[in-house]
């Protein structure tokens, strides 16, 4: 399985979350909302291209809307391969984090 960078992971999750409405700006908006940080366009755009190249997401061209001055937009959708990658990633990470969770975080809360 291919490794995902942290940022790619976040963007991929956002695309999954947004389902039918994932494009550059909505992803940015979503991530800004969730992380409460400013995300520049470039920092989203590049992972999107990478993910597309790794075939974790697919793109198609949306219909032009008046809102965007008649311009079309590039819409993204997560592929089964991408979904699979997310699942595997989560399992992997859980394994690594397991002991840490038990020993450090649980201890603290006790």
């Amino acid at each position, binding site marked *: 399985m291919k490794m995902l960078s942290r940022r790619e992971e976040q963007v991929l999750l956002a695309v999954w979350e947004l389902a039918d409405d994932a494009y550059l700006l909505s992803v940015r908006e979503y991530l800004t909302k969730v992380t409460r940080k400013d995300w520049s366009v*470039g920092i989203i755009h590049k992972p999107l291209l990478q993910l597309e190249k790794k075939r974790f997401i697919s793109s198609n061209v949306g219909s032009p809307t008046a809102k965007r001055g008649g311009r079309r*937009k590039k819409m993204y959708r997560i592929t089964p391969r991408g979904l699979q990658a997310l699942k595997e990633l989560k399992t992997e990470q859980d394994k690594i984090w397991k002991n840490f969770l038990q020993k450090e975080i649980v201890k603290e809360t006790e």
Partner: protein
Amino acid sequence: MEKFFAKGNRERNRMRPSSFQKISPDPSDKKVSPAWGEKILKWFLSDIEAESLAGDFEFIYKELLLKKKPICARLWFGLQILKSAAAGLSVRVFWSYVMIKNNIKIAFRNMVKHKSYSLINILGLCLGIICCILIFIYIDYESTYDRYNPQAGNIYRLFTHYTVKDSTQGFASVAAPLGPTLVRDYPEALDYVRIGATVKRSFVYEDKKFLQDGVFYTDNSFFDMFDIRFVHGDPASALEAPYTMVLTEETARKYFGEKNPVGETIIWDNSSSYTVTGVVQSLPAHSHFSFHVLASFATYIRYDPRIGNRWSIGAFLTYLRLAEGADPQKFEGKIAGVVDTHLGPDLKNSSAAIQISIQPLKKVYLLSQPNAILMLRAFGAIAVFILCIACFNFMNLSTARSANRAREVGMRKVLGAERKGLIFQFLGESFVYTGLALVLSILLIQILLPAFSRLAGREITMDAISLPLIGFILLGILVFVGLLAGSYPAFFLSAYKPSVVLRGNVFRSRKSLFRSILVVSQFAISTGLIICTMVIFLQGRYMRNKDLGFNKNQLLVIVAQNESIRKNLDVLKAELSKIDGVVSSCGSSMVPGETYFFNSEAVPEGFNSTEMIRMDNYYVDSDYLDTFEIDVIQGRGFSREIPSHKTDAVMINETAAETIGWENPVGRVLYLPPDPFSQEEPVPQTIIGVYRDIHHRSLYAPIIPSFIRHVRAQGPIENRVRRLTVRLDTSDLSGTVRAVERKWNEIYPKQPFYSFFLDDYYARLHMGEEKLGAIFRTFAVIAVFIGCLGLLGLAAYTAEQRTKEIGIRKVFGSTHGSVVFLLCRDFVRLILIAVFLAWPVSWFAMSRWLRNFPYTVKMGFGVFAGAALLTLVVALTTVGMQAYKAARSNPVDSLKYE
């Protein structure tokens, strides 16, 4: 003030709340971001990428507009566009680099794979480019004479147009007082210089004696006008006083070695002594004028004081320097008639008119060469033609061999190559070939330039060529050849349909109209050049061999032009006649071919004094006609025994008798000036005979009415003996010349002996045609060679294409001959068409050229047929060799082929 601020604040406040009301921008808003953003993105990114990015940017931009100041939004927007564009650009550059690298690699692989074709292509292009560059260098050299002179733009040469009745003669010399008068009367004219040519002079300094050529009388302003640098002496006053002179460095070294000669004296012609007042650097070779010795004009005036005020004789080259910014055309208009106003009533009443015009110094060289500008244009055309022939080779070979590339094209298209990309690929390939040829030709030009300057008779060196010019020419050639040679293959090859090509159904054309047109034009140009070369050669030979009216062979001319020689001339003649091989000798003021004749006005008996005829004339002695073997048609020649022949007699040529209209001119009277320079009343002179027309001018000029008179015993040197001509009849020419020289040295121990053969002199006079012929021959050979290179490639290709057909034909009993015929037939047809095209064009061009000569060779059918035959034979040999090779191949091998 207050109000203004308040209003501004109010407006800002009015805007603010609205931004709070709307979290997201109004969907109905029109595009607010600068439109250039999207345009720029579209240059660097794919369409959809650019469009969606632009949409996104605009959205954020609008948000920013609401939150922050417009300037911030704009800055942000600009930055985004810049970043995206840079990213897109770097990707594009990377991939186009990959693509170009690949294309060049493919070009080189193809080149190496088909070595012979590549060699033909590059060699042809290289030859064409070399010719082209050399010709352009020559044209540049010829048209930039005298540019070294910083004042060249303001200097003009005076030119005379002399009109009698309807015929106008033009010459570059004017009367002596004209220059000073113009400078005095017209404020535009700042300075003048007069240059008077003179014959070769015998110079004696101590034990050194030379017959010095390149001697001129001139004003002191010469040095300033022509930017002359002094080595010794004072430029301001070197040529002020009479009997002073200035030498060039080389000339000074000849007489004085390395010492400073200022103050030394040199004896001229055994009579007068001149003081050296300066040594100067000679003019650059790239100048229309050259000299070895300059003597002061004051000396000339001392010789003949009348010259300073004489308006009727124009014998001096005169240059004027006009003020910066003066309008030369206006000035020319003002001075056109100036001579008429100063001339005495004699000429004014006559039918002759004199007009003065001016020629800019920068153009003087071209204007003084006959047809120079036309010739340069012709050379330019030849350069382009030869380059075209080379380009056509490239086009022909690459399209003919296109079948071999078809699969590559198909493959590329399947893999997504666009037609545009393929066109660029093939154009790029032609640029690779052109570039290689260009580099090769630049190297070769360094080697060939000296040989070329010898061929052209000019001192062209690498230094003389301006760098921007050569860069411009090279770039021009690269673009011209690259585009011309590459265009057709590029469009032709890129049009293949992959579905057709990859099925193996390659369109293999043997005949293509376009290719045929190219071959026809190549050989039409070649044949045309061959015809031109032949006509030029024939005209040259015609002029060399033309009957001049006298026998020019074995005539030795000795320069004998000073008083002490003249005194003992009879002794010398008597002594010479004793030498074995000397038939006779005679003295004259000039020999035919030289230009020391005069053109005087003669009024025939019974004519009105305004109906004069201008006649060439010079002076001869009583042995002249016999020695030169000139026939006397009517009357008799001059006789030693009859004293009146020496003063009152004249002989005219046939043309003169015809022009005057006298059936029997002997005994009639011509009224002639007593001597060529005199302004005195004409004196009656009796015609004692008519001699056959001779060409005393070069063959570039028609024979005009002329007369000869007996040399005088005194008076100006122009009408006295200056040449001693010896008729030899011997098989040992050099031995006889040595014997003549020995006799000369016995009689004149102090005089330099200088002699030449008249036939050599005539040959040199008509050297121009030889040179031109040589240049044309070289280029014609190259044109034919390049054309044949292409033909060789085409023939080889055709033979290869038809290998199977030939094999089958041979199996069925075809002979070698019939196979060769089969392969040659198409080419012969093309070349015949080319020949028929070349004939009328070259006939037209050459008859225009021949119109410059009064005596021309007839362009017979032989020339045209000969050129056609030559082209055909050369082309057939080329094709035939390939055809024979194909015909001889064993059918077993050729049927196994593929």
